[in-house]
């Protein structure tokens, strides 16, 4: 556990992505099976010990520490697991052992609600404070060490110099502690057999379109939908729904999962139907109400029914179609989708346009709530994992723009810790009050960042910890993809992907945009 605990701590304190990658790959190379596999699962929150709850740990603390001292300490530390790890009394005569991660995982998974307190207590007794912390985070989940599944996979690929795409694919097919995955990566052994497992296949991704024109004889055009990219898999009798990052989101969308009953793997956009849209696809804002839920109520399912607008077919029955050109896959897709439940699956249409100028007009005119732009797909391209140049392009609608006034600035993280690089900006109400409408921390050059940092330091009105309130004098032209109603902000608005487009040193703050103007941009 000590090495695992040291890894956790180094991830907690490291902000640089490269340093995190290095720490994880070193650990994976130097740690034996099955410990490293358990560690990998823990980092990506793929372990679950239902018998151990946060309350188990809190109650356990009460058996060793005065409840009032615990309460005061918890209040100071701010995290139950960490408080218990720090406060747990160490018997001075007791030799501390260093159990393996595997021993810990076995012990935790063999517990019941009734035996959990004793088992966790004896593990805590055997460890030093850092290991206790790692143990408790492992037991109740929620490591929060800033490691996404993607980062963990990248570290794995780096550790053993294997292609990330392969890791991506195999990873989802195997269960912790991934012994077969390590064996394959380390010894160049046989690829594990995956034919009947409903795992995630890496998505084919697109580049932004930056050219002036494109031969529409070679490229097909589809709408780009403003939902979330999903992959629905039905293989070996099981169905799964995966998000862009390969996370299993089946639990949040049981309606879609239950409806997908034909063997195959489809790629499409998850959307919800909106009453305002007459049962058609609603905006991203509506979809957000269903995202990130562990379970979903009947009411939710009725109010925001989810469906997949399908645009590609990776596997049809037993046939892997990924090496076929797009137009052949499209034919198979057009035969496949009509056999699915119509409430939850429909076909993303190919736009019939053969003149680039006409396409430009269509793209600019599209104001459907769920359309984000258009996709350009080369007709001869196979389905390739990752972002490969020359095959798929996304051509988003022009962003919206607003002139806003900088109100607050906050220090950045990592490399940017010495800069005020996160800006909150606002627009005017009819009464001449400035209300925040968004926050941005990108879009500017290094030179501009230096200038903004200096502006913040020279125009500070108040300090609140890492935040500074600045004189309301600087206009920032903010670009954003769309704007929505939001109860979270006093202005009642929330922007999607806001970034600083230009610093308008020339414009007086009074001439920045009004809230009412922004309200008019809601789609």
């Amino acid at each position, binding site marked *: 556990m000590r090495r695992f605990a040291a890894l956790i*701590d180094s991830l*907690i*304190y*490291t*902000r640089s992505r490269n340093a995190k990658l290095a720490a994880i790959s070193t650990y994976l190379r130097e740690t034996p099976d099955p410990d490293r596999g358990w560690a990998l699962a823990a980092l990506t929150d793929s372990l679950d010990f239902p018998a151990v709850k946060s309350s188990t740990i809190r109650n356990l603390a009460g058996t060793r*520490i*005065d409840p*009032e*001292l615990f309460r*005061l*300490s918890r209040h*100071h*530390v*701010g*995290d139950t697991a*960490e*408080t218990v790890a*720090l*406060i747990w009394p160490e018997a001075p005569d007791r030799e501390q052992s260093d159990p393996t991660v595997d021993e810990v995982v076995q012990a935790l998974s063999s517990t019941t609600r009734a035996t959990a307190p004793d088992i966790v207590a004896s593990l805590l007794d055997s460890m030093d*404070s850092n290991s206790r*912390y790692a143990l408790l985070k492992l037991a109740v989940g929620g490591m929060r060490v800033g490691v996404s599944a993607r980062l963990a996979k990248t570290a794995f690929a780096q550790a053993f110099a294997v292609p990330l795409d392969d890791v991506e694919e195999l990873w989802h097919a195997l269960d912790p502690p991934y012994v077969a995955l390590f064996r394959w990566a380390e010894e160049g052994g046989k690829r594990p057999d995956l034919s009947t497992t409903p795992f995630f296949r890496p998505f084919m991704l697109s580049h932004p379109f930056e050219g002036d024109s494109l031969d529409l004889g070679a490229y097909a055009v589809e709408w780009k939908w403003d939902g979330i990219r999903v992959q629905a898999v039905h293989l070996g009798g099981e169905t799964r729904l995966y998000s862009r990052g390969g996370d299993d989101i089946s639990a949040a969308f049981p309606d879609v999962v239950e409806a997908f009953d034909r063997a195959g793997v489809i790629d499409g956009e998850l959307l919800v139907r909106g009453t305002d849209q007459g049962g058609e696809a609603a905006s991203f804002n509506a979809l957000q109400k269903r995202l990130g839920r562990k379970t979903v109520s009947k009411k939710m399912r009725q109010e925001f029914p989810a469906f997949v607008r399908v645009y590609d077919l990776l596997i049809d029955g037993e046939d892997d179609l990924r090496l076929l050109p797009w137009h052949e896959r499209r034919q198979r897709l057009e035969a496949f989708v009509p056999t699915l439940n119509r409430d939850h699956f429909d076909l993303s249409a190919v736009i019939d346009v053969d003149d680039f100028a006409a396409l430009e007009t269509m793209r600019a005119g599209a104001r459907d709530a769920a359309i984000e732009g258009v996709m350009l797909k080369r007709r001869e391209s196979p389905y390739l994992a990752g972002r490969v140049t020359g095959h798929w392009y996304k051509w988003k609608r022009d962003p919206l723009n607003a002139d806003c006034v900088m109100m607050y600035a906050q*220090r950045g*993280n*990592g490399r940017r*810790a*010495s800069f005020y690089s996160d800006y909150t900006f606002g627009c005017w109400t009819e009464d001449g009050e400035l209300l925040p409408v968004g926050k941005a921390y990108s879009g500017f050059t290094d030179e501009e960042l230096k200038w903004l940092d200096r502006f913040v330091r020279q125009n500070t009105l108040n300090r609140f910890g890492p935040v500074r309130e600045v004189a309301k004098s600087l206009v920032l032209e903010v670009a954003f993809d769309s704007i929505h109603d939001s109860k979270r902000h006093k202005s009642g608005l929330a922007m999607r992907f806001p970034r600083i487009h230009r610093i308008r040193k020339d414009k007086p703050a009074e001439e920045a945009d009004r809230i009412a103007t922004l309200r008019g941009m809601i789609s």
Partner: protein
Amino acid sequence: MAKAKHWIEPHPQGVYVRPADIWIDPSGAKQHAVVTHGHADHARGGHGEVWATPETLAIMGLRYGTDAGTPVAYGEGFERGGVRFSLHSAGHVLGSAQVLMEYQGERVVVTGDFKRRPDPTCAPFEPVPCDIFITEATFGLPVFRHPPIAGEIAKIFARLETEPDSSILIGAYALGKAQRVIAELRRAGWDKPIYLHGAQVRMCELYEELGVSLGELRLVMDTPKEEMRGQIIICPPSALIDKWSRRLPSPVTAMASGWMRVRGRARQRGVEIPLVISDHADWDELTGTIRELAPKETWITHGSEDGLLRWCELHQIRARALAMIGREDGDDG
């Protein structure tokens, strides 16, 4: 026997000793003051007459431009208004003292700030038996246990080994912490020059003058950027995230403080190497010292008094919190 309650008055501004008309560590200017040590929350400028150790007077001289005062060495004392005052080493920073007061057969000790761990830059804590023990409680919660310092110093060397091209920037309070960290680095075998932020220089020089050797120290300002790769730099905690740090090559930030025991606190400050090094007693030292001295009563000046009060209650020790102001849980942790 006199009752301390009648001759010692705790005020938000400090402890007042009525028969002697003397304040201990008052937070505002007073006519007569005993100062336990040079930290700003204990040593304020502008007093009429000051009693303190010679080292504390020298530190106050550096801070406030005047070192006028009556020096009192450890173990020595003076009498005023029938109260006998004497100073005893507190082990906190160079010159730090506890104040023992004896009046009509009653003994009262004010610790100022103290610690029990060995520190190469100052004299060790001297346990002084007393009836009333007036103590700090900066780390008066059982989550605060400072690990052995050698392991913390080793974290710096480990980082330099894996990232030899970086520069390690350690945030350390200018009085006490900075010198202790330097001395511990020396003790662990680091004999290269150690680089200082400008704000650390004068106090280090004063420590040297007072007989604490710190090895070769250089100023960051005078050193070309590239030369500081693989080097250790000491700066005030506030400079860690300041523009100042941009002049260093690939800086990795460390911070030496007892507060670094709590992960969230280290993260909040963007610290990459938290060094749990404190000049204050941790929970075990606080409770152990109260047990060892077994005073009739324990009074708590500042810190997490609720935690220590609760412990006293559980152990049936008479205790009260004095709620002193202006003693912040700042960077001298």
